[in-house]
């Protein structure tokens, strides 16, 4: 990954409810994590571009899972517009799936790890963009 975020990954493995000395520096439900920190319109615009380059090939330009490669894959890419499916995934799960790839999350190996291409701010922006795709009325 372009920037070091070993701390982030370490924290991701910890319970969200951890407190005190064992508390992570950020949590998916907190206010200091990379996901909640990236909230501006510019960030979302950049996230849309990143999504187009890195995600749309498989997940489709509109996020419905119908990308160019989808017909040739054993496992259908996730539909990022599916509110119920996406609602069951925490921001941290999404963050880690993008960063570490599907295999690390017991999901499809077809989903590659992007931590070598994206920094943690960019991944956080993508997570926020996924929330827009799935859940914005």
């Amino acid at each position, binding site marked *: 990954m372009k920037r070091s975020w070993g701390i982030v990954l370490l924290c991701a493995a910890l319970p969200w409810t951890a407190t005190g000395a064992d508390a992570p520096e950020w949590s998916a439900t907190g206010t200091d994590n990379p996901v909640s920190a990236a909230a501006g319109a510019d960030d979302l615009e950049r996230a849309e571009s990143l999504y187009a*380059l890195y995600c*749309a090939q498989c997940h489709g330009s509109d996020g419905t899972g119908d990308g160019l490669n989808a017909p040739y894959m054993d496992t259908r890419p996730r539909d990022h517009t599916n509110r119920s499916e996406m609602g069951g995934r925490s921001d941290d799960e999404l963050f880690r799936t993008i960063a570490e790839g599907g295999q690390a999350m017991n999901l499809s*190996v077809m989903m590659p790890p992007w931590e070598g291409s994206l920094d943690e701010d960019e991944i956080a922006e993508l997570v926020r963009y996924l929330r827009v795709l799935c859940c914005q009325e």
Partner: protein
Amino acid sequence: MRRSISGLYPMLLVLPALAGVGGAAAAALFPPLIGADSAAADGEVFVRQNCAGCHAVDAIDYVALGVQERLEREAPPLYYAGNKYREQWLVEWLQEPEAIHPAGYLRLEVLQSTNADDSVTNEDIVDHPALSEDEAEEAADYLMSLRPHDDLLEATGYSPAEPAMRMAMMHFRRFNACSACHRDEDGSGGVSGPELYTAGERLQPRFIASFLAEPMAWDPYSGMPSSGLNPDAVHRLADYLLMISEE
């Protein structure tokens, strides 16, 4: 050459705006080649006048241009062509270009203008213009002189070897899921990346190894993930790609 092209993936442009328009639009896109009547045309002049409209011939300022440059890029950059392509393939391909990207060179315009399933039809793909033998040789001679990344090639420490084909195929298709985006045989695999069953014909072995290991060293906004493969895994995949190109 086996079938398509490649490397210059380049050239196989997908221009959705031209979908269904056909020859007239293609003719408008590619006007008569400058210097086409002059076998003595200088390679650099020829490339800059005829290729630079779609291909980056000089280094790209990735930092300043950001991801948007990649999304709007019409064809692969050529400023490191001498580190990437095999000259013989280049000369042949430029005379008889065939599609390297099954869905055309990936860019935003393609992704946003496709069908409900984001499929790209053959009509969306504009053929790369074919050069004469003299033009191809002149152009290739210049392109092969563009070698800003010799250091990256030297760093691979890669020497081709004969792989255990069955296991190598498993690594390509299943363990590393390269087939999600690439084809290792005609009709098998994803289409957003260049087909790889002719990669060994068009690409230098050490470029293949280097790009597999560090795609961002070549293109910070490559759609190819930096998967963190160890050198053995990289070499095994490179061996596989070289081997299937010989079959």
